[in-house]
């Protein structure tokens, strides 16, 4: 198990390096010019100097290695300085955004809490809805609950979030006026009233994402429960006189959760990607919106860093899912 984990972690490093190279080269091959917005009246030699100032003067491989150094060496050193008050990173250049000329990670740190609360809450809520629905659906297969449940999860899984989000805004935001249709990110939670405001504005984006996640996870949960309910050990458990409750909620549920947990782990980075769209619908200024703005503005360091963070999320959650599977299911041997 330990050697397997080590091997997988070692394998993740070249994967991530390769992905960063792909993203970098894609950005490099792009015809877009970060100085495209600069007016034509600016003389060429000034433009050249601006280019130098942005660090665009060197060959691409030098800039790539520089970016790697900044991402993996300078930034961690800087965080270390922030926490322990040391000065390792003194005089070293951090990754700077072309747009705002401030360090990319500072901007991301400002945006991250919004994304984390919305996405995190919705995923948690989705899982909490999905698991009981999956259990009941499978236990009472072909009952009306199951029929409705599978139909609703199929619908939820087929409706794109940008459509459900907009419909929610029309119904609950405009017609009924229950919830604000635009997420106010300047809101500070200081007292009970502002807390209620925060909850009210989170209801719609969280519900939209949670329904989508719940639809997917409940399908997995149901399939996994069905697989296990037909196993011999279930019959044995019933035969030795265990109560139905113990059989289903202890024996079957625990075994069925093994694949579902890995699916949940694998789905988390995808949800972060999907939040791109939900954030756009509800105007939440999280990292998804940041990425879209940066793409439009040709802000190469920002796009590069954000996309790479998404890649890190995917690779690490795949790793976590693989390891969890081995930890939870002792029958799995990684040798």
């Amino acid at each position, binding site marked *: 198990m330990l050697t397997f984990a080590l091997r997988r972690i070692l394998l993740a490093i070249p*994967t991530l390096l390769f992905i960063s190279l*792909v993203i970098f080269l*894609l*950005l490099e091959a792009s015809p877009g010019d970060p100085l495209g917005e600069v007016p034509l009246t600016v003389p060429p030699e000034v433009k050249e100097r601006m280019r130098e100032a942005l660090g665009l003067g060197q060959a691409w491989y030098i800039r790539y290695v520089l970016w790697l150094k900044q991402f993996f060496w300078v930034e961690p050193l800087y965080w270390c300085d922030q926490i322990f008050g040391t000065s390792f990173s003194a005089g070293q250049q951090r990754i700077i955004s072309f747009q705002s000329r401030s360090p990319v990670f500072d901007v991301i740190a400002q945006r991250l809490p919004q994304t984390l609360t919305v996405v995190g809450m919705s995923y948690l809520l989705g899982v909490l809805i999905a698991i009981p629905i999956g259990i009941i659906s499978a236990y009472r297969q072909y009952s009306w609950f199951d029929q409705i449940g599978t139909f609703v999860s199929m619908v939820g899984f087929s409706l*794109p979030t940008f459509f459900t989000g*907009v419909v929610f805004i029309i119904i609950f935001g*405009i017609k009924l006026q229950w919830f604000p249709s635009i997420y106010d990110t300047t809101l500070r939670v200081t007292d009970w009233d502002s807390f209620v405001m925060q909850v009210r504005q989170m209801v719609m984006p969280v519900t939209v994402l949670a329904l989508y996640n719940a639809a997917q996870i409940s399908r997995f949960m149901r399939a996994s429960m069905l697989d296990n309910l037909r196993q011999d050990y279930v019959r044995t458990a019933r035969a030795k006189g265990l109560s139905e409750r113990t059989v289903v909620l202890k024996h079957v549920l625990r075994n069925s959760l093994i694949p579902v947990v890995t699916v949940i782990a694998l789905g988390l980075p995808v949800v972060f990607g999907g939040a*791109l769209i939900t954030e756009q619908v509800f105007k939440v200024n999280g990292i998804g919106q940041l990425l*879209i703005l940066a*793409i439009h503005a040709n802000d190469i360091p920002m796009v590069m860093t954000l996309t790479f963070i998404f890649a890190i999320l995917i690779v690490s959650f795949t790793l976590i899912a693989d390891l969890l599977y081995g930890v939870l299911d002792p029958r799995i041997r990684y040798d």
Partner: protein
Amino acid sequence: MTEPSDLLVEETASNAAAPGAEALPPANPVEAGAPARSQWRDVWRQFRSHRGAMVALVLFVSIILFVAIGPWLWTIDPTFVDYRARNQGFSMAHPLGTDQLGRDMLARMMTGGRVSIAVGLVAMSIALTLGSLIGVVSGYFKRLDAPLMRLTELFLALPLLPLLLLMVTLFREPLGQKLGPAGGTFLLIVSAIGVTSWMQTARIVRGDVLGLKEREFILAAKSIGTPAPRMILRHVLPNVISPIMVAATLGIATAIITESALSFLGLGFPPDFPTWGRLLFDAVDQMQQYPWRVILPGAFISLTVLSVNYIGDGLRDAMDPRIRGR
């Protein structure tokens, strides 16, 4: 297993030649004559017993007919600007109303659907061709297995939506200048979606091919000296056609959703070139006054995707009796 699979090979050889072809069962299942039981007739019979899938099939075919034949019957030009008739509600002249420039929504919905479904079908064929090719090659040739599977894992680790956004924004204009705004965007979106969604198919196909390679009829074919290309085309591909077809239906659904999502983020087709996603995106600014203009294209996207997903479900059940009812 040898004789039925021989027969099956004859039956499906034409299908196997184009794995990206229509994911629908054969069109004329009930023919007069001897009731020969072929695999496809069995699949169709099973498929018919899946009520949801049948409803979905009817729905999907009618959506296809609506967008394919509709523009011939409803001859208003979708780009015709009638400034006096803008923002109209439902009426006889404009059954689905008009938009803020007075363009007929019904006509726009039809042409938009054409583009959306075309994107879905073409992107799915690209993904499927790539996926089946990589899956079959890596399952069949042992030496290529490890490198190709590493490649698949690499692609699976890519953050797809951000990369798609990047590809479309970065290359939309140069391609548009070369091939015209509509053609360039179409090519770009279709290939971007295709190149980023073949991995699941490749993995499933590889797994099936690995299992298939151990079977006797493959051994028999090998022992009479069948060369590898013919082996793959005649014996391997026809036997992995069912997972490929299921992947095809799911591929159409995801491709349509991805295209609409890109359009929704303002990174899809140019404005005078409607797709369902683009129509939805254009209507969002005025959803307070004209909610129908948002709901209609969204409903079309959702219905298409829902029906395609149900067809995929029914097809999977029909082709693999072991997983029926899951």
